[in-house]
């Protein structure tokens, strides 16, 4: 096999792997912001999810249970954010900042209790599996370490992320629920007069955003690597947030943006492994520079949901 094809396979493979946690979290961002609630606490929810996923997977030896608990852990912080923002009219960015402190703080607090004072978990026995692994290897359909292996033989979370992009898109644009979520994010007063329960929709959306961020965290801790540590999630939630805006608040747009950030990481790792004398730091910087340039290039910034960040007060009730 041409080494260049194999290199390409390696880059695409790592891109997919590193994009996946961002995709989950970014989808969470799409859901909450579409309902009109800013969630800058995605970072903290992801952080907590990464820990919860690794801890549960370590103790139960079941990565799937880990993934589920990560999502539920994220959803718990989503609930807190929803209580603050929806029920008590909190300043949404401030509440999000609080969630970042709380998510990370509580993850490390529990980690120290469970893992003998350490701010990292032990290595999990079983990571999220690679469901197509049986197709690759000696005497199988595809050779191992070939292009196809590198690109398509990925963790289940990768496929799940892509599937969820479709699901979120479908729900937002093709279902009753999605239409209501978007309406609440654009004009909650109008939705309210039509008997739509703005509070319930927003609670649901914010909790779901935590659920997705939790999945994103676990996609990092029990798929990309095999344990949680205190530096595992550092800014990924913020990047996912930027990707969501970059993607114009659309699931498919967020996907593309996350792949871009993932590709930069993939390229950085590839060049690092080859010892190419290109400044890796400059390369790593590129997607951020690019994001700013693209944001500047947006014409007509009306893509954000109109009611975003605004407090909805039904007044009397």
């Amino acid at each position: 096999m041409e080494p260049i094809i194999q290199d390409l396979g390696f880059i695409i493979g790592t891109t997919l792997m590193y994009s996946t946690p961002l995709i989950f979290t970014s989808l969470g961002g799409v859901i909450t912001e579409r309902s009109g609630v800013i969630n800058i606490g995605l970072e903290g929810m992801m952080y907590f999810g990464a820990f919860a996923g690794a801890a549960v997977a370590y103790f139960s030896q079941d990565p799937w249970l880990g993934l589920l608990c990560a999502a539920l852990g994220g959803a718990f912080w989503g609930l807190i954010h929803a209580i603050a923002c929806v029920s008590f009219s909190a300043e949404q960015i401030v509440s999000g900042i609080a969630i970042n402190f709380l998510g990370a703080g509580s993850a490390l607090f529990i980690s120290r209790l469970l893992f003998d004072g350490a701010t990292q978990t032990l290595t999990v026995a079983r990571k999220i599996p690679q469901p197509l692994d049986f197709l690759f290897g000696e005497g199988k359909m595809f050779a191992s370490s070939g292009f196809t292996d590198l690109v398509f033989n990925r963790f289940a979370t990768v496929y799940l992320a892509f599937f969820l992009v479709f699901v979120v898109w479908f729900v937002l644009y093709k279902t009753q629920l999605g239409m209501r979520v978007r309406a609440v994010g654009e004009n909650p007063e109008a939705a309210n007069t039509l008997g739509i329960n703005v509070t319930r929709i927003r609670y649901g959306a914010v909790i779901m955003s935590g659920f997705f961020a939790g999945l994103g965290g676990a996609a990092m801790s029990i798929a990309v690597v095999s344990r949680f540590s205190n530096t595992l999630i550092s800014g990924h939630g913020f990047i996912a947030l930027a990707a969501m805006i970059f993607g114009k608040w659309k699931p498919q747009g967020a996907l593309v943006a996350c792949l871009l950030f993932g590709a930069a990481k993939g390229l950085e790792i590839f060049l690092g492994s080859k010892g190419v004398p290109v400044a890796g730091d400059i390369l790593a910087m590129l997607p951020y520079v690019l994001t700013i340039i693209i944001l500047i290039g947006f014409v007509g910034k009306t893509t954000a949901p109109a009611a975003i960040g605004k407090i909805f007060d039904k007044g009397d009730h």
Partner: protein
Amino acid sequence: MTGTKLKELFLKGPFGLTLISILLGFLVGAIVLLIAGFNPAEAYWAILRGIFAKPKYVSYVIIYSTPLIITGLSVAFALRTGLFNIGAEGQFIVGAMAAAIAGYFIQLPMLLHVPLCLFLAMSAGAVWGGLAGHIKARFGVHEVISTIMLNWIALYLSNWSLTLQSFGKQGTGKSHMIQETARIDLFGQWKITEAGIEFIRSHKVLGDILKSPVNLGIIFALLFAFLMWYILNKTTLGYELRAVGFNPDAAEYGGINVKKSIITSMSIAGSLAGAAGALQVMGVGHKIAKLAIMEGYGFDGIAVALIGNNTGPGSVFAGFLFGGLKYGGAKIQDAVGAPTEVINIVVGTIILFVAMPKLIQMLLKFRKG
């Protein structure tokens, strides 16, 4: 008369809400500790001892608090103009980098070298913050997003600077130490002379304090806090910036240049965070090192600003609170075995309650029946 006014301020004003939030934060922290099987009283006592038991501790708390106060001022200043400066982190990094470069390469007498380093660092921070302001004013890109991006760009830029042959100490991931003339340590040289060592050994209180990296940073922090208060409340610039923060449409109507105000405010905020980075290099680290992740000075600054109600004096108070908790909180691990991170939970809870004045007012009403 003044008694009732004071009471009013405490119960209904922002000051009272903040104090109640702080109490609730510690209450939640205590509950978490209880559930985890620790005695909260013991844990909090350990924190208090960790802050006040030795002169050295107090000195360390001040040193810990200094950058937090200044990044807090940075965030607070921008917030008063209605801007959320998530970018204090990146501005801190470029400030530290600028100070480290200027401190290493330039040869000057101390009286010029220190101000020059600080000036260059503040300029670098101002550029970093002003850039976000400019992008917002000119293109309408929300500053939260642009500053998140700029934080990462700053981090990689700083790491890249360490790969340069002349600046980075190859293979260590650290820069060369800055010149003595660029340092703001108190008695830094003298401490390692024989006389200094002897002094530290023989003087109980002063000697103990000198065991910590005592430096002039806190003086600058207090000066900045005063300057911020003065600019915002006593100058025409402050009037403009506050008008823009409260109501940009009315400010524009009144003839204030809103776009210019946004850039000015973010530049000033950036220069403050840059100063924080510089003072950390000049007073404590004397070098910069490769950053695997964000150190969090800027993010902690957000907490400080929010707890300090976005004022100069408030940020000083909140900076000391947060610095004390960070330094003292690290000791509860050894003292009672409880995780240090209960501090983050306390701080997070305080911010959460600060974000919900409505809830606290409801609680107060409920209490009154």
